[in-house]
């Protein structure tokens, strides 16, 4: 049906979206690249000329770099492990017959809709506060010494908060995948006497493989750039500075734009490595 006429109409209809996104991508990206090769300190002398790859070298050799990489990996890895493992268990549970399934689903999904600054602040004060937080009440009730969560185990605390926010997402996607599993296959396995564990490892888990991959990839992209949860809780103190937060501090707090931009370029490369895998899966799915 596609005539020459409708083709050019289609191109015309796509143009605004394509041009806007092209501008949104190219303009800031070019500027970041440009700044990354400059010594640029807006509050201390402004543009001090070209420096080649100095910023790139200085960013990775600064004492804050490796700790921030490790913190990023711990937070992303921790949240992924927790949300995927609990997500699988929860999805399997929610797939079982029960009363009030819809309501349980609503309860489980709710944290995803809480804005990041709210969940960070509620957890920080009402749960993790060492004197008045609910967790310290609980600790005292059992006769234990309350934990000052965000200063003693700050990274673990942030992993807990972020996992709470992302568990609904993982659960929901894995549940959608589990529901597409052919129940006859499971019944057949059950009749053949396959125990619960082997049914899980040989039927359910392989069926979920693709959904798990997608959860991991999408969450990684979002988790690499978590900001509000750190901004509100520790402000990057106590070793909770992630790569994203380090770049933010370089650019806006210490106003070292050249250095921060070089960091930004690293972040973009890192995100793109993850994105390539995600795009491949999405692209393959489009052909099907």
């Amino acid at each position, binding site marked *: 049906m*596609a005539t020459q006429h*409708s*083709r050019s*109409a*289609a191109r015309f209809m*796509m143009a605004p*979206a*394509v041009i806007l996104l092209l501008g949104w*991508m190219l303009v800031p990206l070019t*500027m970041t690249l440009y700044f990354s090769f400059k010594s640029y300190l807006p509050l201390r002398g402004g543009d001090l000329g070209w420096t080649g790859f100095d910023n790139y070298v200085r960013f990775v050799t600064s004492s804050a770099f490796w700790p921030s990489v490790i913190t990023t990996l711990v937070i992303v890895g921790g949240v992924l492990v927790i949300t995927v493992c609990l997500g699988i268990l929860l999805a399997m*549970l929610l*797939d*079982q*017959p*029960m*009363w009030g*399934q819809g309501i*349980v*689903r609503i*309860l489980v*999904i*709710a*944290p*995803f*809709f*809480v*804005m*990041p*600054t*709210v*969940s960070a*602040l*509620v957890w920080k*004060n*009402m*749960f993790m506060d060492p004197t*008045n937080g609910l967790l310290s009440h609980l600790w005292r009730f059992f006769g234990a010494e309350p934990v000052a969560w965000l200063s003693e185990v700050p990274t673990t605390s942030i992993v807990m908060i972020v996992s*709470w926010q992302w568990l609904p997402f993982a659960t*929901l*996607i894995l549940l*959608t*995948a589990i529901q597409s599993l052919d*129940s006859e296959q499971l*019944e057949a396995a059950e009749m053949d006497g396959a125990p619960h564990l082997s049914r899980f490892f040989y039927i359910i888990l392989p069926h979920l493989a*693709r959904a798990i991959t997608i959860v991991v990839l*999408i969450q990684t992209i979002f988790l690499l750039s978590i*900001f*509000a949860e750190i*901004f509100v809780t520790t402000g990057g103190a106590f070793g909770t500075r992630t790569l*994203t937060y380090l*770049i933010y501090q370089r650019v806006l707090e210490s106003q070292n734009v050249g250095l*921060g931009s070089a960091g*930004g*370029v690293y*972040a*973009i490369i890192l*995100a793109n490595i993850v*994105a390539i895998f995600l795009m491949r899966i*999405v692209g393959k*799915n489009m052909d099907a």
Partner: protein
Amino acid sequence: MARAVTSQRKAINTAIAWTIGFLIFFPILWTILTSFKTEGTAIADPPVFLFFDWTLENYAVVQERSNYMRFLWNSVIIAGGSTLLGVIVAVPAAWAMAFVPSRRTKDILLWMLSTKMLPAVGVLYPIYLICIELGVLDNRAALVIILMLINLPIIVWMLYTYFREIPGEILEAARMDGASLRNEILYVLTPMAIPGIASTVLLNFILAWNEAFWTLNLTAVDAAPLTAFIASYSSPEGLFFAKLSAASTMAIAPILILGWFSQKQLVRGLTFGAVK
């Protein structure tokens, strides 16, 4: 599952699932409950759950002290404006991709998706600088446009997957019957496309409402939405649990309700059609 299940097993499932669901929901419930307590009851040890003197005082204080309505209005404008603008730009694009696909459609879609992967912090300074140069730092219109741009790939994708489900035969039939392009769009396509557009609007409104990188970094007073309003409570001197809870409850209540309606769209929208 079509298997016969004993009601005993069903009861056990129900008990476990409700307990876990309750635990996951508990922080939200606790926040809502605390918002109706006095500051003294809010930090009582042992904690009080339901049997306290319920009060609406915190809500009044929060509104009075920080002008909650202005932040709420900013959130509505920013989330609503960016979603609306995004849909206006995306509908023609998604329509063209779904009904007049070409060899490059898939590449364009994947490229759009790739712009979503760009880490915000990598382009923070350029955007910040552009806003300063144009004099639109702490400006609602600027945030409407920025949030529209970051969500545009998701909007196009969601609409595309919905539009593709509209059978092309119906269009052909309409054309055979002599419908003009205008009538075709107005009477055939629109009614079928509206549910998809509505879901897209809903999910993107939620995403824009909760966006907390650009809204925190590009606003100060005038354009600050609820994300920034809540973040202002993180300073220790203003720390009152009951008031914090009231502020939080007001910030999340509207979106929690909308969110429950959008569960199904969430999967489609955030996995780009890879899980259905």
